[in-house]
């Protein structure tokens, strides 16, 4: 049974690129353009094996999204990776405190992302 990943990013091109990479690795992919859409997707999903989210997004940012997603049963224990251009240590700590599983600074090579995912979703 294929694994399901949720991508949350306000950049269409980034969502396309990540979707391409994850589908190529065997994932079913659902998408959200901001934290709010991400939360709706979590509520509607039967199960989620992985969530990848951007940090800075309109409507609802990544930190808030993670905090809210951790309250929902579908995503309570799902690995959540933050992909961001942000390098501030405080933001990283904020993400960790909200419930993020890991932090990847953009730009990254797809192979590196898949290596990380393989560790989180064996």
């Amino acid at each position, binding site marked *: 049974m294929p694994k399901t990943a949720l991508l949350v990013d306000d950049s269409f091109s980034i969502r396309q690129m990540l979707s391409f990479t994850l589908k190529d690795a065997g994932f079913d992919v659902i998408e959200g353009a901001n934290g709010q859409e991400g939360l709706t997707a979590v509520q509607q999903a039967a199960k989620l094996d992985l969530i990848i989210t951007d940090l800075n997004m309109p409507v609802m940012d990544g930190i808030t999204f993670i905090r809210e997603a951790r309250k929902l049963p579908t995503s309570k224990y799902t690995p959540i990776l933050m992909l961001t251009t942000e*390098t501030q240590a405080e933001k990283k700590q904020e993400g960790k405190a909200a419930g993020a599983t890991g932090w990847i600074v*953009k730009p990254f090579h797809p192979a590196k992302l898949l290596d990380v995912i393989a560790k989180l979703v064996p």
Partner: protein
Amino acid sequence: MASLAQSSASMGARLMDADGSHNVNQVIQECRITMTQLLDRLEQSGQLYAKAIAQMELVDTRVQRVFETLKQLDQSSFASRLVALNAKIEAVHLGNLGSGFEVVADQISSQAHRSAELTASVAVILTDLTKTMQTATSELRQLADTDREAAAHSRAGAEAALENLQFASSQMQETVAETRRVSETLYTEISNAVVAMQFQDRVSQRIGHVIDSLEAMNQALTSFESAEDISLAERKQQITQSLASSYTMDSERRAHGPEMATVAVAEELAPEDTGDVELF
């Protein structure tokens, strides 16, 4: 597509041994050896057939000699019967004195007759034997000829098939090697394209932040026009703080002023340092 490219590359690698020789070539070589052994055995069988045929022909020649001997025996029996008949005639001429001699003549005639019957019987058996042997020899010769032709035909066919297989294998390996090279290039290019897209996204974000900053600056300047009691230094500080709150990249903070950077210049997002991963 990226995983397809990787799969093609690894499949190509699997077709090659570590020492560079090709598995398919080894299989072809083993097939050739096995085929040659089989054909050699077939040819050896053909040679055994030929020997058997020669032996049977020799037996046939000897049987013909036996026929000649039987013929001489038959002639001898006939002569004996003639002798017995003449003896019997002479015995009759002698009357009572020749009666004993007549009995002997009858016995000789009877034995000669019996000998002729036995000779005829042996001739019939030998004739049957000769026919059977000739049929067997003919069938064996036909079988040997068929096997020899089949072996020669099989050898030529198998050699041609193996040559074709080797040629096809060599072409396939060249294609696989080329596919692997292309796949590796494709995989690298896809990865580079993905990274390039992320750089494009960074640039887009920075442009967005510049626009936001300009708008914020415009609003601040407008609001300061009516607030004459604020000093120039305070105005500058307020604008700076307003702008700094919208930055997400350290390079943006540094562009605004070195004191705003959170990371040393040497550490900040050199291309080889991007993609940093931290699992909590």
